[in-house]
């Protein structure tokens, strides 16, 4: 429905609306399920609409004649892009009113917008306050007053400033509240937990990093919220076995329980495993759980489907085996960063008939162990495993033809042989990640494109990929994500081929692909209309032309052109005008970008949230101009030579929504302290960096502008190229 948003944007005036409305309904013959009415009713209305619209076409107040139900129907189809709804609401008053009554999820951009948002959306059920850093008790009181009956979900995970009073207010007044995210409320006390315990209907609760909550608090929650289905207690260091045990005794409906990084021991595990519906259990980094506790467990947990025991350093493979034997229904298992994966462990994995996904990232793997695992699993994560060899990997892929997802990141021992067996046996592979498999040759990489046509995600970062390989990859027409960073051999020609066939591509990573020039980028821009994310960092060959062609990609959210010295303000201006959805922008070390470019950005890219301006030629003026971007949250401003402390101060003050600013520490004494305090009080975090100003020498190697960073490994790369 992206087009419809544009359409609405065009028709803020009256003329032409009828056609637009007709267009809308003609493109949505098969309406998606809508939330407010039954399907039968909806269909009837849908049938009636064209006639109604046509009949009233001549009337002057055509827009007003549309009933609210019809507008709701339209709005139901505008879920994909938030900007579309905004455009919709700006058409006229009735549209505005309809939109405000239709919207269920509200995410205020800043704390001071909360009252307005509450006033505008009285029926909101989902309130996401993760962008509001200061939420006071009074704000929560106003929330509970305004959304008393409708509020079902609230996210306070990034907010501070509230206390148990506010929480209690929510819990008491909003009876429909089902979901609360209170993660990161590190100063939340037991009293607040007791307040949470009063919302009896709570089903999902996140308390990650609530370190002040003790057993007493979680006990109140366990007794009060007996309908809990999901509970996340990650990093709750104050809660011990007693609290977890009580939760397991009281909240029998728990489906998902996250006990990661908690100081729990074997004492609470029997009760936890006896939860009748437990499906998802995370025990990541529970260092107090040891072999003895796990082996002595007698309870079988038949409902358990997902178990994450990554990083349990005091658990050996024998104990894992015994745990696995007690959870026969396991579908997904993560044993990342743990221990040696041996034959015995693998054979107990093999007994799990429903297992679909195994993550063994960072574990030591023996060949025999891998050979035994080779079964059943539909997805396998072996990233950063040491000991993955050709033999082991081949045995996996040979035995398991249906593998959908394979992650062999940094398995540096595998060669073309593995790749040959992967590509020949697992033709249904949808996701393959094999960053830094350095022994695989370009011939091996070609096999991927030749055989795995169903690939949707492919990560070949830091491999020996060349244009031939890319041409082969162009056979994967479903490709959505392609990461081919640090593939120094790829050139425009390969990209052109990919661009011709893979029209669904949304994300492409060309980090340090030095062979890419404007021609390649132009092909990308033409070939991938849905492109959302592009990384062209250190592609030193690209110029403003690339950006001009990229400006046609109206869906672009993320653009990284770090270290592209030939890019100037002109290109940036084109991007700003063309890609109005742009959210993240990294123009670090684009030395020629100056205030002019930033002014365009400030004027057009009103959705910009994150920007990196380091090393640019931007001055106070540009920075101050950026302040008009109301969404801006994250700025990195290092080494702006012409930036003055006062300019910086003014910009900081003017950007009301800032949450994180990276600054050079030399500014710290120059910017007045009260000002910094004031900004921090608004919810902004300053990160002071003391990086030296890097001086780069730009050299021409083989028709390519190479940036030399003396201390870095890239020097070697370019030198190798030079030798070649």
């Amino acid at each position, binding site marked *: 429905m992206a087009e419809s948003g544009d359409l609405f944007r065009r028709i803020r005036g009256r003329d032409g609306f009828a056609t637009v409305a007709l267009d809308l309904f003609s493109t949505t013959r098969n309406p998606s399920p809508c939330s407010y009415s039954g399907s039968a009713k909806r269909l009837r209305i849908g049938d009636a609409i064209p006639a109604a619209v046509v009949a009233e076409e001549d009337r002057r107040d055509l827009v007003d004649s549309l009933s609210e139900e019809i507008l709701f129907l339209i709005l139901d189809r505008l879920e994909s892009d938030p900007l579309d709804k905004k455009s919709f609401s700006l058409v006229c008053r009735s549209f505005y009113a309809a939109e405000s009554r239709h919207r269920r999820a509200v995410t205020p951009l800043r704390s001071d917008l909360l*009252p307005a948002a509450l006033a505008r959306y009285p029926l909101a059920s989902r309130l996401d306050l993760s962008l509001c850093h200061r939420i006071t008790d009074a704000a929560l009181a*106003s929330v509970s*007053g305004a959304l008393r009956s409708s509020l079902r979900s609230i996210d306070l995970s990034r907010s501070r400033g509230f206390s148990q009073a506010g929480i209690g207010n929510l819990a008491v007044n909003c009876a429909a509240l089902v979901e609360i995210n209170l993660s990161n409320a590190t100063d939340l*006390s037991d009293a607040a937990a*007791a307040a949470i315990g009063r919302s009896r209907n709570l089903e999902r609760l996140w308390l990650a990093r609530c370190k002040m909550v003790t057993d007493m608090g979680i006990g109140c929650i366990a007794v009060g919220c007996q309908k809990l289905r999901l509970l996340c207690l990650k990093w709750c260091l104050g809660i011990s076995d*007693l609290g977890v045990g009580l939760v397991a005794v009281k909240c029998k409906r728990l489906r998902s329980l996250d006990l990661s990084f908690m100081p729990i021991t074997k004492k609470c595990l029997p009760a936890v495993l006896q939860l009748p519906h437990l499906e998802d259990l995370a025990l990541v980094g529970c260092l107090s759980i040891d072999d003895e506790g796990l082996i002595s467990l007698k309870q079988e947990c038949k409902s358990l489907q997902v178990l994450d025991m990554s990083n349990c350093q005091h658990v050996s493979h024998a104990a894992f085996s015994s745990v696995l034997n007690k959870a026969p229904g396991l579908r997904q298992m993560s044993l990342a960063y743990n221990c040696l994966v041996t034959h015995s462990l693998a054979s107990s994995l093999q007994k799990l008939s429903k297992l679909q996904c195994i993550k063994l990232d960072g574990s030591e793997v023996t060949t025999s162990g891998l050979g035994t695992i080779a079964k059943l699993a539909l997805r396998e994560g072996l990233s950063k495993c040491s000991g993955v060899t050709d033999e082991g990997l081949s045995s996996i892929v040979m035995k398991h033809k249906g593998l959908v997802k394979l992650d062999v990141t940094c398995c540096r021992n595998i060669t073309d042989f593995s790749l040959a067996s992967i590509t020949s046996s697992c033709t249904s592979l949808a996701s393959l990640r094999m960053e830094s498999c350095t022994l695989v040759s370009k011939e091996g990489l070609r096999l991927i494109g030749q055989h795995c046509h169903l690939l949707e995600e492919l990560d070949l970062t830091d491999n020996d990929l060349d244009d031939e390989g890319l041409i082969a990859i162009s056979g994967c027409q479903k490709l959505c994500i392609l990461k081919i960073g640090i593939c120094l051999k790829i050139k425009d020609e390969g990209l052109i081929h990919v661009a011709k066939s893979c029209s669904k591509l949304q994300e492409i990573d060309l980090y340090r692909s030095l062979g890419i020039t404007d021609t390649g980028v132009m092909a990308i821009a033409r070939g991938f209309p849905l492109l959302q994310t592009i990384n062209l960092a250190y592609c030193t060959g690209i110029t403003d032309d690339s950006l001009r062609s990229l400006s046609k990609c109206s869906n672009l959210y993320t653009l990284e052109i770090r270290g592209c010295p030939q890019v100037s303000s002109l290109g940036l201006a084109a991007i700003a005008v063309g890609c109005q959805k742009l959210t993240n922008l990294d123009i670090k070390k684009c030395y020629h970008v100056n205030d002019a470019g930033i002014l365009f950005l400030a004027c057009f890219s009103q959705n910009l949230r994150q920007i990196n301006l380091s090393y640019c030629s931007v001055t*106070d003026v540009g920075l101050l101009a950026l302040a008009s971007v109301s969404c801006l949250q994250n700025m990195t401003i290092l080494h702006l030579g012409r930036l003055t402390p006062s300019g910086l101060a003014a910009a900081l003050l003017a950007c009301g929504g800032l949450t994180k600013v990276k600054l050079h520490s030399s500014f710290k004494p120059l910017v007045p302290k009260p000002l910094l305090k004031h900004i921090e009080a608004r919810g902004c975090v300053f990160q002071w960096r003391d990086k030296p100003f890097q001086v780069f020498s730009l050299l021409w190697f083989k028709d390519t502008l190479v940036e030399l960073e003396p201390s870095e490994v890239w020097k070697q790369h370019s030198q190798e190229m030079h030798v070649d």
Partner: protein
Amino acid sequence: MVPERRRPPEASSKSSSSMMSESPRNRKPDLPFTPFDSTNLWCGDRHGRSFLEFSPPLVTQSNGLFGPDRETKSKNQHEPSPVDDPVMDWNPRLMLSNLSFLEQKIHQVQDIVRSIISHEDQFLDQANELAAQQQLVTADLTYIIIQLISTAGTLLPDIKNALLSTNPAVGRPGSNQKQHEILPVEVAKASQYDSLIKDLNSCGGKEDELIKCSNNSGVEASEPIPIEDHDTKDNDDGMDGENLPPGSYEVLQLEEEEILAPHTHFCLICGKGFKRDANLRMHMRGHGDEYKSPAALAKPSKEASIEPQPIRRYSCPFVGCKRNKEHKKFQPLKTILCVKNHYKRSHCDKSYTCSRCRTKKFSIIADLKTHEKHCGRDKWICSCGTTFSRKDKLFGHVALFQGHAPAIPMDDAKVLVTSDKAQVSEASSGMPGNMDYNFSGNTSLDAQSPDLKGVDDGHGCFSPMTLDACNIWGLAEFPHSAYEVSESTFSFLATVPFKGMEKIKFQAAGMMNCSEQHYPVIIYIRSNKGVQVETSIMTDAHARTVSFEVPVYSWHLNPTSAEISICRTQHERGKYYKCRIT
């Protein structure tokens, strides 16, 4: 029965006599020390030591032969004469059979002593050498004695038990054998003293008494004892983890009087009782100079026993108790202290009542004191009001009952309640939205500060702005201006009170129409240059003025006027009041 380790024979005999429920004081008026209590482990040592120390005079005395010298006697007062010793309740036949064997052994030692004596005749002057030799011998002797006694002491109750029990062989196969080992010791000791004091064999004379005694104890034991099987629960005696096989240790049993005796050491001169031997020794100083010698006052040192001691366990005298050795599942007690605590806890009245809760009773004062430390301080509270001293107990309780929840400590809860109330009243009263604020805030802003055009004014025409303005603001010498407001309930004053101040101070005068004592107020200020500042302050209900500060930097754009809104919640913000800044 006395389970004393290094107790000299006379001591054990004494306590055995005390077992016959005769007052030791009455029976032994001539002996100042009656180590009565079995708990005093050092008592035996003391005797051994004193024997050792007094041996030189003893030898001289034996040199002068048999004349019961008054002086020696006084020096050896606590050296009891075995002849006078009363009955010991061991098997006299066994003892008799071993006596001769022991006699021979003792005679060997005697010979050595005699040789020393003859040497002594030659080297009368060299007292040091003599003393050394004597000490050597006596050390030997005491060593033997101690060894013998220790084993003998362990055996004595076993004999009695064997006599007492209807089934003597029950589970203690070693007892007979031990009897064999130990009886000679007693005899040896006896004969040793005999040989040292006078060459006299009174064994025959003693025998009758011994037999009589054993008969006595037999009679005592033959009384039918109803053995009830009631398992008294006492886990506090530290024996539960121990699983010694029934034959691998000796079992001693103290009598009730011994267990309950408040004093365990008695002065045999005046009869005063003491809990500690050391106190008794101090006390003895008053009875004569002879008790003041360092030797008499010294703590009897441990004589290192070379042979490993057999494992010893204790039985509770209460028949039917699980700690009684007759019980089917007998669990012995580890130490004498355990016996005492167990007996008092399980079989005595609980006479100490906690003064705080008036419900808990204890028979041991230490238990009461332990309880009083925690009594009334149960900090783990359930919502039903039950208190617990331990968190896990509370959680067990909460897990057990529906609807019970852990109760958060009162002070926290209070905060919660009051704040809730505040919310409610706030909601009901609402913010006086119709309040008329009239701001005429004034600050003298110098026209010299560079005027920065707004961002919206157009692109590319920015003059790099400096924050000098801020400094000027902060440092400018503004008069302490108080601007009164004409007709409103609320007035605003913007002042920069003194030099160097980096904030503008606003003051609002008027009545806050609110019922609460203190409540937060949010203040929004926006300048005509688009800068918004938000600050929140706590106000007093009846305060006439509200003052708040805004950082000067907020005003870098040099506004000429500002709008101010005061509200209770963000939600209520609506009406802004103009405030001119000149």
